[in-house]
């Protein structure tokens, strides 16, 4: 099978890959406290790299520390195949990072915290912010904290996505559970390549 190098721009870049290494990126985004760092930790083969700082603004109300640059984890498929997992900072003032992080990504995992004041607005905001990327790649939506906040329900999110003319799997997840995060990413991959076999 010919080697597929998705983006030369980062195939030999700062994480130390070389030209013979196939690197892919999956991006995790969503509001502060939605579980991005936790989700990456659940699925990563390596100890994740975080850039948490003590929260100093509104994020402080939700958690003591928050991601300010990015989170990084990795799934290592072989010596030459790696899937890099990037978590965007949740706070909007770091949104200049988002375009940089999504460059060359294969899909977007949007985590929405169902306990927040207006999850529909969050969904709108992030799908709008990543509009181009979503159109080019694949979005999957994971709803967190549904165990304690049952409303809105998954069906509400489906309707909201319909209104936004976006087609994407929506799953209720617990970011702490590897199985949940894994299913979300599986849905992303299978949406990108329906019928893909599990080798």
């Amino acid at each position, binding site marked *: 099978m010919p080697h597929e190098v998705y983006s030369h721009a980062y195939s030999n870049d700062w994480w130390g890959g070389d030209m013979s290494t196939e690197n892919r990126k999956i991006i995790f985004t969503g509001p502060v406290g939605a579980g991005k760092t936790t989700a990456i930790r659940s*699925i990563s083969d390596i100890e994740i790299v975080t850039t948490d700082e003590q929260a100093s603004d509104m994020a402080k109300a939700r958690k003591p520390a928050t991601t300010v640059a990015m989170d990084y984890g990795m799934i290592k498929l072989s010596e030459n195949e790696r*899937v890099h997992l990037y978590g965007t900072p949740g706070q909007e003032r770091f949104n200049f990072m988002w375009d940089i992080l999504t460059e060359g990504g*294969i899909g977007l995992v949007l985590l929405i915290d169902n306990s927040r*004041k207006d999850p529909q607005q969050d969904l709108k905001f992030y799908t709008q912010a990543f509009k181009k990327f979503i159109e080019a790649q694949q979005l999957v939506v994971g709803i967190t904290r549904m*165990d304690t906040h049952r*409303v809105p329900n998954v*069906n509400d999110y489906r309707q909201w996505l319909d209104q936004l003319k976006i087609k994407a*799997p929506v799953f209720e997840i617990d970011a702490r559970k590897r199985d949940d995060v894994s299913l979300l990413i*599986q849905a992303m991959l299978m949406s990108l390549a329906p019928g893909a076999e599990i080798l």
Partner: protein
Amino acid sequence: MIENSKQNNPLNVCLDDAGTHNKAILDFFFAKLGQNVFRCVDSQEKASVVLIDYDFPPARQKYEEEYQQWGKPALVLSISEVSLENAIWLAKPLTSRSLLDAAETLQKQLANSGVEPNADETAELYPPTDLGLTESNQLHPPVQTTRQRPPEIASLGAAAIPLVKKVDEDSPDLADDEPLNDTAVTVEVEKEEDKQPDLSTNLDTETHENKQTSAETKDIEPTPEISEEASKSINESRTIMLCGDKPDIAANSDLKDFYTDDSFFLSSLKDAIRLARQCQQGVLLNFPKARIYVLPEIHRVFCGINIYEDEFLDLIKSCTISEGGKMHILSTQEIHELNDMISQQASALYDMEAFVWTSTLLSAQGGLPRTLDPKKVVGLKHWPSLTRLENFPHAMPIAAQWSSTSMNAFDVAKSLNIPQRYVFSFYNATNSLGLIEQDPEKLITKKSVPRSKDAPRGLFSRLLKRLVGG
């Protein structure tokens, strides 16, 4: 099938002064749940009860200038509390429960006064000239009944269900959360683990609603030899229970072997859910072996029988039209009883979609109801939330395939090279959840820009293998 033990004489009401929005709601209510309780008449004179929207100035003016003097009892709709003589305040938005409760109060009141609530001559019993308020008040003592405005946080009828044990009323567990949105329902499902801030500890919070067999949970690690074998065996038998073991058939052959009769249990369940959603009230579905509570506002179903055990299949198979299947909106007392039951058995509270999904699969076991044609091209509107539904082989590839391309069930099985029974099971279960679009033209197509490269299927396949545990 709605149980209606209180078939009193209906109350005559006129909706002319109810306002357009309320009229639409009430028309709907009168046509269904309220059909034995209320009857529409074409003028307030003929009504036994004056019904007005007190927030609508012309209606309010009419009431104050004219109707009030008739001495008829009144149902006063308003968003803020209204305290009027001989009137019952109904808070907007209206709920079926508050309407039924109000009707019950009025019927008692009219019965005590010897008035037939549905008699057309009712107006004559309350002629404007006849009414001195004093006399009228003797007939109808000041009611002063008010209904509390239902909390915007949805409640299950008159009494809110805390749903499982109240944690500690003095210390709400919301300290680290932003205020809830207006319509949010907080369900403090009792899972102590969820309250632990340490997000790094995981995998131990799964309740049995979260699918599958307990052997699959990661915190249980029996000896590998036994667990692998036992787990495999359990999974295989469960898969057969869910999807059957019928062999494939040719698309042009007789499908009668794949068609199953509608399960009475499933059709009753769907009716109960429909009713519960329409009236946004909890509904009790009564079978001899089990009582099933449908709770639409929190999207849950309470069932004392574990749906992942054989006993639940027995329940489904044993339900017949002659034995139960009656349903009704929960009374206040039943809500309190339910609350107690939930406190004692929180694990019996299932996600509604998970409950319908598993019930559908067990009812059909790989077959299809006659309403579904496997040769018809259909599309998947939305993915089912597979993290919270009972899994069976190939569910995810089927979802991906059907979501990307509209096709018939036979072609899905063929394109994925998988047994048809899994596709039929998926088709049936997703259809029960309302996720199938029979008219593919109506499906939303993804706005997309051409990808610079095709998906790297080899890498995806290897990544999938890793994710599924290979």
